[in-house]
């Protein structure tokens, strides 16, 4: 017995450690898998030598026979208390226990059952798992709601006993009456019945949410206006549950039906108001976050998510912006951006809140969404992002301002032409080009004609000349010809780069009158000039 008790003691320490690990690490962590496997091996060794493990459970100790084999007074980490507090008084693990059973048993022990929202205790979890080789004895006395209810009820029910004369009467009647066949009976259950039952049970395993959804709609139409808030509260709980449990299709179906009522002019105004509240709830941060997670995990398809977002109001914008920064997949981000582009049209201000986000990629995505929306009222918000510390954000902002033809941002764009980053300068130039106003054009010309322009990289210079080509007017044409004909004594290579850019721009402008100059340039011994002139000629003559 001493040896057995020692082995049990060691085994229980192992189980306590395993439980601790399972509580710390996620289930798929290799540490967990190994600890559980090792513990199972140890349990098997114990069971092999001792047949079974039978423990009596006290509040703070576990006994093997009468020998304490585990003791703890810790409140949180106490195996004995874990069983004791829910009424388990004896526990037996039998030799044939499988690893799967053991793993499930340990998972149950590791659960945090002290949370108020958890509706199961350890006995329920073990009962539901219905272990084949783990048995336990439960003391149900502590479940009693009222100590003396049974005594009172029994006393009341038996107070007035059956009277002698009543039985006599029954007896007399019985003597006089004809023998009466019993009215109930046994009905044969046929194979057909059984097949129908199998089908019933199969059908019963289908998702119950659509049925609930239908009932709630009935409930809504049966409700009095003062009951709408209560009914909406149920809808909210149901919707939250559906999304939280990954049943996104059902959640969307529910919203689809309700949205139909919301849009129906025959729907009473009070009901519409309540429905509006429900859509606002559907747009709230916790729900939006859960939906976003489903989208990210591929549990909510893009089409379904877009439909879901379609039922939401502008209240969802803030929530979706938060989610946007947390998504991991590109597909999910694309879908959410589409949703935000639709919702953002209703409230640019709410969307602009996202421009204050600390994460550069969120800000860039929001600017992109503004580009998608294409509403000029966004210019004010966008102008604030032109000086963003991240280069990618600055570029996106400049692109957006250009696309919105933001004349009021011309000065800012002009400043951006001096940005330390070449890509930003080019983007600013393109934006100015798109705006196309005389002020914008003047800034681009000023930049191109400035002395420092010569020193820029060829690719950047080319970008600027591309912008100039976009003007395609006489002033620009003359400027380009002048540039081609320019003679240089100093920085000859740089000047030739400039000439190549001018040739490139003339090609883009498709000006036939420039062909003579370009053919001449093609004869140049400078390979860069010759190639660019040839390309421009081809573009003008053949459009390629």
């Amino acid at each position, binding site marked *: 017995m001493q040896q057995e008790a020692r082995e049990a003691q060691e085994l229980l320490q192992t189980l306590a450690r395993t439980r601790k690990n399972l509580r710390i690490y996620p289930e798929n962590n290799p540490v967990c898998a190994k600890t559980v496997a090792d513990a199972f091996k140890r349990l098997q060794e114990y069971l092999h030598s001792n047949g079974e493990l039978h423990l009596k459970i006290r509040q703070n100790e576990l006994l093997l026979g009468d020998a304490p084999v585990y003791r703890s007074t810790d409140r949180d980490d106490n195996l004995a208390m874990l069983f004791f507090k829910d009424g388990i008084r004896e526990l037996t693990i039998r030799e044939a226990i499988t690893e799967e059973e053991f793993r499930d048993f340990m998972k149950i022990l590791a659960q945090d059952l002290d949370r108020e929202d958890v509706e199961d205790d350890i006995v*329920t979890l073990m009962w539901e798992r219905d272990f084949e080789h783990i048995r336990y004895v439960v003391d149900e006395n502590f479940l009693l709601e009222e100590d003396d209810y049974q005594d009172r009820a029994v006393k009341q029910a038996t107070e007035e006993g059956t009277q002698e004369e009543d039985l006599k009467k029954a007896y007399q009647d019985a003597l006089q009456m004809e023998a009466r066949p019993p009215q109930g009976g046994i009905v044969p259950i046929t194979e057909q019945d059984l097949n129908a039952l199998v089908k019933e049970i199969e059908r019963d395993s289908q998702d119950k949410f659509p049925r609930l959804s239908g009932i709630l709609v009935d409930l809504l139409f049966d409700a009095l206006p003062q009951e709408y808030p209560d009914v909406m509260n149920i809808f909210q709980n149901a919707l939250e549950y559906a999304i939280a449990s990954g049943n996104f299709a059902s959640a969307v179906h529910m919203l689809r039906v309700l949205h139909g009522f919301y849009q129906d002019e025959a729907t009473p105004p009070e009901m519409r108001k309540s429905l509006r509240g429900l859509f606002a709830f559907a747009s709230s941060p916790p729900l939006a976050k859960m939906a976003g997670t489903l989208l990210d995990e591929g549990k909510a398809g893009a089409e379904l998510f877009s439909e879901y977002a379609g039922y939401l109001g502008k209240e969802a914008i803030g929530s979706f912006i938060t989610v946007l920064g947390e998504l991991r997949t590109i597909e999910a981000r694309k879908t959410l951006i589409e949703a935000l582009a639709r919702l953002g049209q209703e409230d640019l201000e709410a969307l602009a809140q996202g421009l204050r986000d600390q994460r550069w990629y969120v800000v860039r995505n929001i600017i992109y969404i503004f580009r998608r929306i294409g509403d000029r009222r966004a210019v004010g918000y966008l102008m604030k992002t032109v000086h963003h510390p991240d280069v990618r954000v600055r570029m996106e902002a400049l692109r957006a301002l250009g696309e919105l033809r933001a004349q009021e941002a011309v000065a800012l764009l002009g400043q951006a032409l001096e940005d330390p980053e070449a890509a930003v300068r080019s983007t600013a130039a393109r934006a100015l080009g798109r705006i196309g106003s005389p002020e914008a054009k003047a800034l681009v010309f000023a930049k191109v004609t400035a002395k420092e322009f010569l020193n820029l990289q060829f690719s950047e210079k080319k970008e600027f000349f591309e912008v100039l080509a976009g003007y395609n007017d006489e002033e620009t044409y003359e400027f380009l010809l002048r540039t081609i004909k320019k003679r240089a004594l100093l920085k000859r290579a740089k000047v030739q780069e400039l000439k190549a850019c001018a040739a490139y721009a003339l090609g883009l402008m498709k000006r036939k009158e420039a062909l003579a100059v370009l053919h001449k340039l093609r004869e140049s011994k400078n390979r860069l000039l010759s190639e660019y002139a040839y390309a421009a000629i081809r573009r003008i003559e053949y459009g390629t």
Partner: protein
Amino acid sequence: MAPEKDGQIGVAAKDVVNQLAVIIRTAQIHNPTNVAVLSSIEKFVSMLNRLIWEAGSVELELVGDYFYLNEDRVRFSVEYLLNFDFLQREFKGRSLGRVHFLCGLKPEDMQHFVAAFLAAPHRPDPFESLSHALEPVKCIEVGGLRRIAEEAEHDIRRTVKRTYFNAVSFSKGVMKKLRAGEKVNIRRAKRIVESMVDLLLQQEDLLLGMTAIKNYDDYTFHHSVNVSILSIALGQRLGLSKRALMELGMVALFHDIGKTEIPPEVLNKPSNFTDEEWRIVRRHPFWGVKAVFKMKGVDATTIRAAIVAYEHHIHHDKTGYPRVRRLSDLDLFSRIVSIADQYDGMTSSRVYARVPMSPDRALSLMMKRTGSQLDPLLMKFFINMVGFYPVGSLVVLDSKELAVVCGTNPAHPLRPKVLIITDPRGNKLQEPRMADLTLKNPQGEYSLSIVKSLDITRYRVNLAEYLL
């Protein structure tokens, strides 16, 4: 035993029981030497020898309503229900509780077993005859049906009573708490229902007997618990899993939870309801959904409970109340609860319907409602569950003694368990006594039989006195 190491034998266990049922069924139709019987015997023997090879021997035991193979309960799905039910009845009909198959089992041994098994019911003592006939067969041993020892039965009775009254007390507490806007302890509800499921699986009669007692003050709370018990019992007949039975028991317990919104003066009104009062009462399914969602966090059980709270008064043909916009079939649990609800309601003395019906009259009326109000398929199982003589029926024996039915007998539906309450002259017995109607005299005739049944509601027989 250790046969379930890899889960292979877990599958085989239900196949063993099923195949044995197939053999007996086939042998009842054909001669035991028929080729169909022989081939099913061969299959059985080969299956069993594999198990014997792994475990040394195989013991099939019937305890309560369950088969155990080498001490592990045999779990089965609904496809096997008919054969499991059949074999259980056949075992019980012969008072056979245990068959032990030993090493070296041959098809000839099984042929011998089948012949003895089929002959046994025609003998005065079926089990003795079976046991005697199998003496020459060395590889098969049989044991009688284990009777629960008096002390153990006393313990179970105590547990049943405690569980039942605890459930009623809980149900009362739920109503009070909901009215006061307090939180309901769902963990406790689950534990209570789990206990009810366990008791129904072990000793169905005792807990069903508790539902037959109707003279309590707190009708509403007893009704909720009774409906839960009857629903679980019916669910068990349908072959629902233990987990599903728990969910069914939970939702049935809360099916009338919407009644908390009915003003007490209406709910407890001793006379007939006015139209307006009926209108209020008929709102309780609507309030039920609200109450369920208020009571607990949302999960699959909440959804089911809300569905049942809403649908339990909607009839099979979609009449009843509330009127529904959808025409889809009612939920399975709603249809089960609806049957249990009607049966308990009819056999109870309610505030607005003082005179209860006798169980057999209620059943008879329900049979008339089959197809219109009640699901015909489920009703078949319910009728079989309640039997010819439902628990709580008052019967007259051929000895001229009056008796109260206190338990059904699936193997002999016309021979339920009874408690004799008068002597042959109709005098009340101070110490009522249990009688086994399956016992036979040395001439092979039943010692006692039921000759008539009486409408118990006409005689103020207090069932609590006999069944508690």
